[in-house]
């Protein structure tokens, strides 16, 4: 690891820095093909990735509602982003066990105020 490197090198750190500013970012190959889960180099070729911004819209690919003993049902979903990658997230705004595969969703960040650590979640978007 290079000493004194000013830019964040960890994909998780880069992603989190964008989230703090309310941007959903993703790494991509030189030709724009998304890389997810994020990595420093493109799987299969080893080329360096560059980070792009997602429009934050997608479709529910798979979904479940977890029924842990000590809390109400909560959603976990895999979202196909329109840019062509699939991330894990949570769908809010509908009951956890009523999220349907194929539902169009849009990103929002929690907590809503910028500055601190923020997590992308998705809400039904329509259209």
């Amino acid at each position: 690891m290079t000493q004194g490197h000013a830019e964040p090198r960890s994909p998780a750190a880069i992603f989190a820095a964008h989230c703090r500013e309310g941007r959903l970012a993703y790494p991509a190959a030189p030709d724009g093909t998304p890389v997810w889960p994020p990595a420093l180099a493109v799987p299969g070729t080893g080329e360096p990735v560059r980070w792009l911004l997602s429009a934050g819209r997608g479709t529910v690919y798979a979904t479940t509602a977890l029924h842990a003993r000590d809390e109400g049902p909560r959603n976990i979903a895999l979202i196909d982003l329109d840019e062509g990658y699939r991330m894990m997230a949570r769908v809010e705004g509908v009951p956890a066990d009523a999220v349907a595969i194929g539902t169009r969703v849009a990103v929002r960040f929690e907590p809503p105020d910028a500055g601190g650590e923020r997590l992308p979640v998705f809400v039904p978007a329509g259209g």
Partner: protein
Amino acid sequence: MSTLRGRFAIAGAAESDLGAAQPGTRPVDLMAQASLRALEDCGLALADVDAVFAATTQLPMAPLNLAQELGIRPRYSDGTNVGGSSFMFHVDHARAAIAAGLCEVALIAYGSTQRLVGRSSASVQELDPWEAPYRPLMPVTAYALAASRHMHEFGTTRRQLAEVAVSARAWAQRNPAAWSREPLSVEDVLASRMVADPLTVRDCCLVTDGGAAIVVTSAERAASLRRPPVLVLGAGGALGHRHITGMRELTRTAAAESGARAFAEAGLGPADVDCVQLYDAFTITPILFLEDLGFCAKGDGGAFVSDGRTAPGGALPMNTNGGGLSYCHPGMYGLLGIVEAVRQLRGEAGTRQVPGCRVAVAHGNGGVLSSQATLVLGTAETA
């Protein structure tokens, strides 16, 4: 053409004590107990063992624990750990090592006290930055996601998932060593406590303690031992992903690759198989593996397991010991599926014996549908 087909055999096989271990029991206690039983089974001594293969979530250096416990200094060892399929990989690696002259008698062992110490203590959860913030209870969340997708794409129903658990229970009722033997109906499964929609607690494997061991050696040497040799006709492994976010399509597993390799080497296909032991961590997994191994078309797994086809008396006996769902699931179940395949091929499975069993498949799954490994095993006449 494989030069390994039929040249190596599982000569000995045994379970450790299963179920709920006494307080203080260590994983290596169960490994060692099963190892000594497997050696006794085939009539070999500790001094004959010159290779040790072991893996368990609780012991990162498992071959060291086992060798020390048994008091042996093996010239070859392998601690490959890719989850519950590791032991199918071990069999493949063991025969390659024997073929290369690196060892002659390979002991493959597993032990877990996950019920005793608690599942969260037994398994280190990797904190994946792309999943952990959403607190996905793993591994069940990943399998629930796959089940949701299978239902969406192919119309698979919760009743069809439940059929897998009902079939396993019917087999478990014929296995005195099974943990859960009370009657179980589709309605019982559907009415059970929901864990991760669409999977109820009865769609999920047991959490037990337990272990197992097998002895692998050359077919020639196995033929001179106490028990009928079980030949390794084909073996194949495949690595798909680590975390569920890295799985390309949740309804298509790397078992399609591992199974194709194993069947190609064996020169056999699904139609030649008399019984299957398919890792049933959750009811969705055997459905995926039946499809990916070629026992039915992609998407037809739900219909395939219905109407008792995999239950006692059905056309394709599956998980004849009761599986991870009803017999025993000590965390990394794969080796117990191999032990059951061996017993079926030897004709020593008692009231659950599949008549005339000559070819059996033992298929392992690791992680979250991540690693897949397939063994095609046969009796001496299939050589």
